[in-house]
C-alpha cells in the first residue's frame, strides 16, 4: 500500500502513514490525476520526511503518503516539470528545507529572500515594465506585481509576495492558541479558527457537541455571505458603478452587525474555541438572524439584477480575465475561483459532514470570466443564506446542549488533517504530534496558495487597466499566503 486513506477531520497514528521510497512516490505523483492538497516536509532526525496528501474529490477521501529524504541529499528530480500542480508546493519545500527540485521550470522565492528574486523580462521596442507595490494606494495588503506590457496589453504578470511572512506555522507549534489561529488571515478568520480548533480536537480526541458544531457552521456561512457581498461591492467600485458599491456596502454591514450580536466582534473574533464555541445563539437571536438574512437576500437579489441588466457593467465584466477550464485544472485552482471556471469542487460537499449532506450541490453555469466570478458570489450568497436558515432550524432541536466541552491532552504520535471551505475555498490545516504529545509540525495551506498563479494567467492578453477588476474578482489573500 502506497497510500493511507482517511476522511476529513480524522485523527490517525502518525506511523500508520506509509513511508515509501522517494522515487516510487515521485512516479506515483507524476502519474496520478488526483489533486494535491499538501506537500510539505518535517524534520525527522537526520532526514526530512516529506508528507503528501492527495484529495479524491469524488469519493471524499484523502490519500496520505510520505517519503524520507536524507539531509545530505541536496537535490531531486522535480515533479512540477511533469505535473504542473506541484509548482508552488515544490518552491515552498525548497525554501523551507533547501532540497532543490532539479529542472523546476520556475524556481523562485516564495516568501523569503525577495532581494534574490529574478523577474521574467521581455525586450522589445514597445515593451515596458510596470512595477506596482508592495505599497499600494488604498487599503490593500503588501505585494509586488510586475507587468510586462506592450502598450496597454499585458503579456506577463509576475506576483512576488512574502511581505507579511510572520512564521505562523512555527508560532503555532510553539504556542498554539485560538487567538493566533484567527490572526493568520483576517478575512477568513472563522474558517481558520474552525480548522485549527478541529485539528486540536482531533489530536486530543475531544468530541464537541452538535450545538457547537452548528454554531460554527452558521458563523462560517455568515462569514461567506458578508465577504461575498463586500466583494461584489468592491467589484462595482472598481468599475465605478456607484450604485452597486454603496448598496452592497450597506448590506454587508447588516450581516457583520449580526455577527457582532452573536460574538461581540463584527468578524466573529473569539467565537470559536477549542472544545466548542464561546457564545450561544438563543431563540431570540436565531429569529433575528433569519430576519436580517431574509432582508439581505432580497436586497442582494434586487441589486444584482439591476447590476446585471446594466449594459456598462456587463460590458466591463464579460470576457475580462478569462481563464480556461483546462488551465484551471492544470494549475489545480481551488475554491470559488475553480467553481467560476466550471470545476465543481467544494469541500463542504466533497468531504461531506453530517450537516452538509442534506444539501444539494448545485451546479453553476460558468463563463470563466470576471462576470462568472461576480455571479458565483451571488449564487453562493443565496445558497449560504438558505444553509443558515436550515442550520438554525436544526439548532432548535439541540437547545439544551452545552456549547463548550473541556479538552483533553494531545495524543502522542498523531496526525490530523482538517479541510474547511472558507469563502475563498479550501483551507487546509495539518498537524502532527511527537512522542511527548506536543505539536511537532503545523502546516497551513490557504486556497490563495494555488490561486495566485491563476490570477497571473487570467490577466494575460488583457488590458492592464482591467487588472484591478481581475484582482478583485479573485480577491486572494496576501497574509494567508505569506503565513
Amino acid at each position, binding site marked *: 500500500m502506497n497510500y493511507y486513506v482517511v476522511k476529513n477531520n480524522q485523527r490517525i497514528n502518525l506511523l500508520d502513514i506509509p513511508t515509501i521510497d522517494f522515487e516510487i512516490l515521485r512516479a506515483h505523483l507524476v502519474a496520478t490525476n488526483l489533486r494535491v492538497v499538501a506537500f510539505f516536509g518535517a524534520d525527522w532526525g537526520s532526514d526530512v520526511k516529506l508528507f503528501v496528501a492527495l484529495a479524491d474529490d469524488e469519493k471524499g477521501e484523502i490519500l496520505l503518503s510520505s517519503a524520507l529524504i536524507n539531509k545530505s541529499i541536496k537535490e531531486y528530480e522535480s515533479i512540477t516539470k511533469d505535473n504542473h500542480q506541484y509548482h508552488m508546493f515544490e518552491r515552498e519545500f525548497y525554501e523551507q528545507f533547501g532540497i532543490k527540485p532539479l529542472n523546476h521550470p520556475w524556481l523562485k522565492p516564495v516568501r523569503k529572500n525577495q532581494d534574490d528574486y529574478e523577474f521574467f523580462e521581455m525586450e522589445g521596442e514597445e515593451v515596458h515594465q*510596470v512595477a506596482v507595490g508592495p505599497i499600494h494606494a488604498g487599503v490593500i495588503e503588501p505585494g509586488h506585481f510586475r507587468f510586462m506590457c506592450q502598450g496597454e496589453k499585458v503579456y506577463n504578470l509576475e506576483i512576488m509576495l512574502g511581505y507579511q511572512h510572520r512564521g505562523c506555522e512555527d508560532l503555532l507549534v510553539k504556542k498554539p492558541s485560538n487567538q493566533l489561529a484567527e490572526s493568520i488571515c483576517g478575512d477568513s478568520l472563522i474558517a481558520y479558527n474552525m480548522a485549527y480548533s478541529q485539528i486540536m480536537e482531533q489530536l486530543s480526541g475531544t468530541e464537541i457537541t452538535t450545538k457547537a458544531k452548528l454554531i460554527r457552521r452558521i458563523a462560517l456561512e455568515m462569514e461567506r455571505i458578508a465577504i461575498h457581498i463586500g466583494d461584489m461591492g468592491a467589484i462595482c467600485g472598481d468599475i*465605478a458603478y456607484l*450604485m452597486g458599491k*454603496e*448598496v452592497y456596502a450597506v448590506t454587508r454591514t447588516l450581516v457583520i452587525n449580526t455577527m457582532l450580536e452573536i460574538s461581540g466582534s463584527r468578524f466573529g473574533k473569539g467565537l470559536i474555541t477549542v472544545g466548542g464555541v464561546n457564545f450561544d445563539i438563543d431563540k431570540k437571536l436565531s429569529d433575528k438572524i433569519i430576519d436580517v438574512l431574509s432582508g439581505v437576500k432580497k436586497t442582494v437579489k434586487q441589486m444584482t439584477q439591476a447590476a446585471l441588466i*446594466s449594459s456598462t457593467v456587463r*460590458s*466591463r465584466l464579460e470576457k475580462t480575465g478569462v481563464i480556461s477550464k483546462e488551465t484551471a485544472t492544470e494549475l489545480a485552482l481551488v475554491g470559488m475561483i475553480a467553481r467560476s471556471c466550471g470545476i465543481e469542487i467544494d469541500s463542504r460537499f466533497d468531504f461531506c459532514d453530517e450537516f452538509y449532506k442534506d444539501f444539494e450541490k448545485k451546479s453553476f453555469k460558468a463563463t470563466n470570466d470576471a462576470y462568472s466570478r461576480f455571479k458565483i458570489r451571488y449564487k453562493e450568497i443565496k445558497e449560504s443564506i438558505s444553509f443558515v436558515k436550515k442550520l438554525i432550524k436544526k439548532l432548535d432541536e439541540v437547545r439544551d446542549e452545552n456549547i463548550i466541552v473541556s479538552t483533553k491532552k494531545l495524543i502522542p504520535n498523531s496526525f490530523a488533517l482538517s479541510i474547511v471551505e472558507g469563502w475563498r475555498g479550501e483551507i487546509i490545516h495539518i498537524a502532527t504530534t511527537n512522542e511527548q504529545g506536543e505539536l511537532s509540525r503545523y502546516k497551513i495551506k490557504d486556497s490563495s496558495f494555488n490561486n495566485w498563479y491563476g490570477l497571473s494567467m487570467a490577466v494575460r492578453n488583457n488590458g492592464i487597466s*482591467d487588472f484591478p477588476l481581475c484582482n478583485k474578482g479573485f480577491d486572494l489573500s496576501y497574509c494567508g499566503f505569506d503565513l
Partner: protein
Amino acid sequence: MNISNAFLILLNLFILLIAPFFVLGIIKKTKAFWGGRKGVSIFQPVYDVVKLFKKDRVISSSTSWIFNLAPVVIFITTLFAGLFAPMVFGYSIINIEAAFIIFSYILGFGKFFALISAMDTASSFEGMGTSREACFTTIVEPAFFIILGSVVALSNDFTFAGLTKIISNFGTYGVLVAIMASFALLIMLLVECSRVPVDDPTTHLELTMIHEVMILDNSGVDLALITWASGMKMVILMSLIANIILPYGLELKILLPLFLGILLILAFAIGTIEAAIARLRMSHVFEFVFIMSSFALVVVSLIAVKLYGV
C-alpha cells in the same frame, strides 16, 4: 445693456475662479444623493484646496525644472484660455476674431506641460496615464474644431461670442445645431475633465487612471493649482454649452440665474451619469470619444445644408 464692461469682466472672472469649487461640490453631492449617503459639504472642494495651499510640496528627486514649473503653467494657461471663452452674457473678456483657435491652443499648451511633467517623474504609471490622455486629446481636438469652425461659419461672427447667436438667428436649424453641439461638448467635457465613463476621479487604482495618475507625484500648492485648473476647465466647457443654449439678448438679471442654473444642471447631470453607469473599458473609451466626432460631423453637415442648400 447699460452695464459697464468693468462689471462684466469682474463677474466673469469671479465665476471663472469661484464656480469650479461649487461645480465639483455639487457633483460630489449628487453622487452621494444617488448613493443614499449624506455626502460631504459642497464647500469641501474649497476646504481641500485651502488645505493643499497650506501644505509643503514634496518633490521627487528624479524630476527636473519642468515638474516644478508645470502646475503654474497649467493654472495660468487655463485661466488665460478662460479669458477668451464667452461666459455670462456671451461676453468674452478678450473678444477677438478666431479666439476659439487661440483658446484651444492655449489649453493645448497647458496640457502639453501636464504631459511632459508627468513623463518627467519617470514613473511607469504616469507614462501610461500620459499616453492615454494624449491619445484621447488627439481624438477630441479635431471634433472640437469642426464644431466651433462650422458654428462660427454659420453665424458669420468669427469671435467666440458667435456661439450665442445660433439659436436666435437660425431658428430650427439653430436648435438642431445647438443640441448636437451641446452633446458633443458634453462628451468633450467628460473626456477632458476625466469623469465617468471615461475616467473615474475617485478611484485609487493607479492602473486604471488617466488624469489622476498624471498628478500622482504632485503635492501641496502644485496639486491645489492643478485641481483648481481642472475645475476651471470644467466651468469653461460648461459655459460654452450654456452660451450655445441660452438665447441672445436677454437682460442680465434673467441671464445670470439662467447661466448659473445651466452650470448647476450640468453638474447634476455629470453626477447622475457617474452614479448610474459604470466606467467603460479602456479600449471602448475610444469608441465613446468618437461619438463626439460623429456629432461634429452631423453639425457640419447640417450647416453645409443650411449654407449651400441640398
